[in-house]
C-alpha cells in the first residue's frame, strides 16, 4: 500500500467488494474476469449483498422501515479491516395487514369507521396477535372518543400511554402508543399509535376522554418531550421540575449527566476522579 488514504475504509453501500476485481490481482494472473457474475457465482470470499426479494409485496402492505443501520460491533469508520463496517441492516417493522384481520378485529375497525364517519385510520397492523390502529394525530381525539363511547366498541379503560423514539424516522420521530381495554367485550385490547415529528412534537391530549391518561401523558412528556395539547397540567412527573432534557429519548445518554443537589454539583461518572 502506498496510498495512505486507502487505509481508511469508507463503508460502501453495496457489500464488501462491490466493484472489486474479485480474485483478480492475486497470484493467479490467469483467473477469468468476474465482472458481471452475480449471487452464488461471484467468487468473492464474502458477500452481504442481499438475496433476490422473495414474493412481491403490495406496496401498501410493505414493512415500514424506521431505521437503516450501518456496521456491526461498533465498526463503522476508521481502519476497518474486518468488513463488519460495511454491513447494513434496515429496521423494518410490520407493515399494514391486508384484510381480513381475523377475530373481532374486522368488526371493530368497521364499527370505528362508521362511528367516525369515514376511515380515519392510516394503517391497521395485526402483529403478534395484537391489533394496532395507526391514527393521524389530528384525528386522535375523535377516534378515542368513538372507541370509548360506541356501545359496540366500548373500550372503557385506557390502561397505558407509552412513548417510543425513532430518531431516524424522518417526520415521525416520536411515537405514542395508547393501550385500551374493553371489559364490556370480554377483555378486548387494542393499541392506538400516533406519531409526531421532532420539529413539532405536539399530540392532542386524550385526558378529556380518558382521565386515566393524565399521569401517563405527563410521564411521556417528561421522558420524550411530547407536548400533549389540552392536557390540564402538563408538568414533569418523574424527573425534577427544573430538569433539562427528556431522558428516554435515544439521543439522551445513559449516565454522564452532572447532578446538582442543593447547589452542590456531582460530576458525571466519566469525569470523576479515577483511581488507577
Amino acid at each position, binding site marked *: 500500500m502506498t496510498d495512505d488514504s486507502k487505509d481508511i475504509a469508507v463503508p460502501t453501500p453495496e457489500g464488501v467488494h462491490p466493484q472489486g476485481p474479485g480474485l483478480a490481482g492475486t497470484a493467479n494472473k490467469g483467473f477469468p474476469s468476474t465482472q458481471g457474475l452475480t449471487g452464488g457465482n461471484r467468487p468473492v470470499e464474502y458477500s452481504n449483498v442481499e438475496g433476490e426479494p422473495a414474493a412481491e409485496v403490495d406496496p401498501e402492505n410493505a414493512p415500514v422501515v424506521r431505521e437503516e443501520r450501518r456496521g456491526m460491533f461498533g465498526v463503522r469508520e476508521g481502519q476497518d479491516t474486518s468488513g463488519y463496517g460495511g454491513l447494513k441492516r434496515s*429496521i423494518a417493522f410490520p407493515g399494514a395487514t391486508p384484510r381480513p384481520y381475523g377475530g373481532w378485529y374486522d368488526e371493530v375497525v368497521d364499527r370505528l369507521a362508521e362511528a367516525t364517519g369515514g376511515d380515519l385510520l392510516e394503517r391497521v397492523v395485526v402483529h*403478534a396477535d395484537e391489533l394496532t390502529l395507526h391514527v393521524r394525530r389530528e384525528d386522535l381525539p375523535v377516534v378515542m372518543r368513538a372507541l370509548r363511547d360506541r356501545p359496540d366498541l366500548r373500550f372503557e*379503560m385506557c390502561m397505558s400511554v*407509552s*412513548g417510543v423514539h425513532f430518531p431516524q424516522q424522518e417526520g415521525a420521530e416520536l411515537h405514542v402508543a395508547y*393501550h385500551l381495554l374493553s371489559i364490556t367485550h370480554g377483555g378486548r385490547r387494542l*393499541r392506538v399509535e400516533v406519531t409526531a415529528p421532532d420539529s413539532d412534537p405536539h399530540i392532542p391530549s386524550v385526558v378529556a376522554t380518558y*382521565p*386515566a391518561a393524565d399521569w401517563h401523558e405527563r410521564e411521556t412528556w417528561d421522558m420524550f418531550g411530547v407536548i400533549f395539547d389540552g392536557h390540564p397540567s402538563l408538568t414533569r412527573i418523574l424527573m425534577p421540575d427544573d430538569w433539562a432534557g427528556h431522558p428516554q429519548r435515544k439521543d439522551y445518554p*445513559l449516565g454522564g449527566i452532572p447532578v446538582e443537589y442543593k447547589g452542590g454539583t456531582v460530576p458525571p461518572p466519566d469525569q470523576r476522579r479515577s483511581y488507577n
Partner: protein
Amino acid sequence: MARTHTHTAGVHSTPGADDLAEGHVVNVQGGDWDQEMGELGMNPEERIVLNMGPQHPSTHGVLRLILELDGETVTEARAGIGYLHTGIEKNMEFRTWTQGVTFCTRMDYLTPMFQETAYCLAIEKVLGITADIPERASAIRVLMMELTRVSSHLICLGTGGMEMGATTIMTIGFRERERILSVIENITGLRMNNAYVRPGGVAQDLPHGAIDKIREMIPQVRKGILELDKLLLENPILKGRTKNVGVLSLTGCTALGITGPVLRSTGLPHDLRKLSPYCGYEKYDFDVITRTGADAYDRLVIRIEEMRESLKIIEQVIDELQRNPGETMVADKRIAWPAKLAVGGDGQGNSLDHIREIMGTSMESLIHHFKLVTEGFRVPPGQAYVAIESPKGELGCHVVADGGTRPYRAHFRDPSFNNLQAVAAMCEGGMLADVIVAVASIDPVMGGVDR
C-alpha cells in the same frame, strides 16, 4: 421570601429551604396540632397547605402528598411522585433481553415475580413462541406469582395496620411473609429481586424437596392469615377507621383506570387471570373476590380472601408439578441457555456435563454458549403489550424490539402508578387521618411507581 418562625419544641422553621413558597413555612414533627399552631400565633382553623412526605412513615416510601387543609378537613389532595425514579426502563435499553429481567424485578420490589413474568411474556409474544413455553415452566411461574401475591398482600395489610397504630398486625404480616420468602429463597436463591423467570421459561427447575417445604408452609401461613383475619375484620376501631373511608365508585375507577382490589371493591369481578388467562390460569380453580362497599375496609377484606384463594391455587399447582416432571425452558436452542445448572456437593451452581462438552469436545458449543450469554438472542422488529394481574392491579409491559439483542423500548404500566391518581378523588372532603387509610388501601409501592 417566606417569613419564618424559629424556636419551640417539636416545631422548627426552615429558613431558606423553601424560598419559593409563599406564606409561613413550618416543619411539624408530631404533637398536638392546635397547640403547635397556637404557639406560633397561627389560627389552627386557617387554610393550610401541608406537605406530607416525601419522608413520612405512613406514605409507603417516598410518596409526597400535598394537602390543602381547612382545619382538619382535606379540601384538596395531590400526590407528588418521582423521588425514587431510577431510570430502570432506560437502563434496560442498554442490556440484553435476558439481563432486562434483573432490572425490571427491582421495580415494584414487593412483587418481583410479576414484573419478570410480564416482561418475559411480552418478549415471548414478539418472538411468537408463546405456545412453545413448556407447561411446567408456566406452572412454576404461576406458583411463584401466587406466592408473591400472598407476600405482597401481607405487607399491604401489615404496613396498613401499622399506619393505623396496630403494630401486632405488622409483626404478624412480616412473620408470615418471611415463611413465604424462605420458600422463594429455596427455589430461586434470593428472597427478593430474584431474576428467576427468564425469556422462554424459568432459570431452573424446583430444587429437590421444594414441594415438601411448600406443603409444610401452607397451613402455617393459613393460620397466620386467620390470625390477621380475627385481629382485623371485627375490630371496632379498625372498622371505624376504614368503613366508608377512601370511597371510589365503579365509574370513578373506570375513568381513572383503577384496577386490582380497589376496582373489585366496587363489585366488578375484574381479574385478568379469569378475563384473559395467561400461564395456564384457566386450569386452576379459584374465585374472584368482590365486595360492594367500595371503601378501605372492603379492600382489606378482599386482600385477606385473595390470599386464601392464592393458597388454593398454590396447592393445585404443586400437585400438578409433582405429577408432571418435564422441561422448564423452551426447546429452541437459540433462546435457551445451554447450561443446565445444578447445585453441586460444594453448594455452588454448576453444570459439569455442559462444561465437559464445551471444554472437551465441541468448539461450536463453546462459541454458541459464549455468543448467547454475552450477546444474547435477537428479537425481530415489532411490539407487544402484555398485561397480568399483579396484587395491585393490572401490570402491563410494552416492549418494542428492533431486531437487536436489546429492548428498543421496555415500558411498564405499573398498577400503583396509575392507581395513585385516585388520591384526589378518595381523600378530598375527608379528614386528614383518613388520607393515610385511603393511601394504604391503594397499596402503592414507590419502587414501581417511579421505576
